[in-house]
């Protein structure tokens, strides 16, 4: 998948921590930059979609690899 500027490992964390950590990380980034988030919480698939829709950041793609998920979010 595409390039990314920053990465966040939220493996093992449960709702709502992956979202909260991602938000915190995005705050430190610049507009247009891409954050890759790794998570293991199955609920995070729907949650990152909802997060993106509500915050105006773009969810570029979601990848699933075994029991891990990778989300690519482009900062608004």
């Amino acid at each position: 998948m595409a390039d990314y500027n920053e990465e966040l490992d939220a493996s093992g964390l449960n709702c709502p921590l992956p979202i909260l950590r991602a938000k915190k990380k995005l705050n430190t980034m610049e507009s247009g930059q891409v954050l890759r988030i790794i998570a293991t919480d199955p609920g995070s698939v729907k949650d990152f979609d909802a997060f993106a829709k509500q915050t105006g950041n773009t969810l570029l793609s979601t990848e699933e690899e075994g029991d891990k998920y990778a989300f690519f979010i482009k900062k608004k």
Partner: protein
Amino acid sequence: MSDEKKLAIIATKGSLDWAYPPLILASTASALGYETEIFFTFYGLAMLKKKLNLQVSPLGNPAMPMPMPVPVIMQAMPGMQAMMSSMMKKTMKKKGVASVEELRDLCLEAEVRMVACQMTVDLFDFDTKDFIDEVEYGGAATFFEFAGKSDICLYI
């Protein structure tokens, strides 16, 4: 007045399990861009103590999953509540669920406004020195000042 969405929560319960809904929703709402206020009243004030010691009790809670069946009379034995609380905290840690302390810190960091009900503080003779410094004190009218403009209002 900002055009951010607003979430107002009344938190009335002070057990470990009931501390989660208001703190999870408030911290998440902040991450989504909501301006958020929690009004803590009655037992909800326990969530504002500097030193948190929230407990969970299986008593009166037949839906609580137990690692093994424990007769209700045994659940009332001394030490049972402390044991259940400690087991619950361990399970939460293992499952990657945030601690109440962590969620509260995240709320404060996100500038969730925390208002303690002055009447209940007086009623229970609580010492405000035992509460975290970020707490503001107010009454029902203070709550409505914010809640009246809110998009979502929850009583927990």
